[in-house]
């Protein structure tokens, strides 16, 4: 699946997007964040406060217990500050 990062999440990870293949045991947004955090220090830093991170699946906001099965694009970003 395709993953996108925005604002300081992008800066901390050091890339705007990538394609990832998490193991089948990773079923929810929460579990994906934990799995990514275990991949490197950069991810661990970006996701150090997982409750702050907002997630969208296929362009719609989702909660952390949402299943990621079938997702084409998952995005992680800080709380929004537009307007």
């Amino acid at each position: 699946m395709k993953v996108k990062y925005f604002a300081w999440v992008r800066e901390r990870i050091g890339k705007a997007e990538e394609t990832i293949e998490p193991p089948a045991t990773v079923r929810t947004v929460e579990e994906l964040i934990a799995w990514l955090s275990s991949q490197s220090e950069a991810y661990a830093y970006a996701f150090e406060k997982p409750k702050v991170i907002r997630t969208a699946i296929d362009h719609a906001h989702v909660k952390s217990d949402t299943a990621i099965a079938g997702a084409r694009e998952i995005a992680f970003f800080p709380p929004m500050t537009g307007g």
Partner: protein
Amino acid sequence: MTCPVTIRIQEDDFDIAREIEVLTKSRTDIGAVVSFSGICRADDDSAKISALTLEHYPGMAEEEIRRHVDEATSRWPLNGVTVIHRVGRFMPGQNIVLVLTASQHRQAAFQAAEFLMDYLKTSAPFWKKEESATGTGWVEAHARDDEAAARWTKS
């Protein structure tokens, strides 16, 4: 009731008078247009801001704004909505966002404009980075914006 909707995310500036004209041209059913513009300001709580950079999530930003415009048109009798959000780097005094709501009477237009701005701030995927004499940093979300958006939630 005809309710044309315009949603644009662009780097270029917008002309408020022109956008109102586009919204109201050849219409005789509109009795009220409310216009809100958000402008880059220099004074924040702490340091003076010298510039602001707006980043967005292309695709989702338009879709998220559309979802809230759809909710606004279902809640209030609107005759037209325009939302323009700029992205890029801005200096104090420059326009950032425009919301226009048109309706037969003012109450619907006022309320819908406020509703749309409250949701734009808390749920449309845009992020601001500030530059000041002390450095650059991402703007933190304010609890007061979440509270402003929460008051529209139907109980």
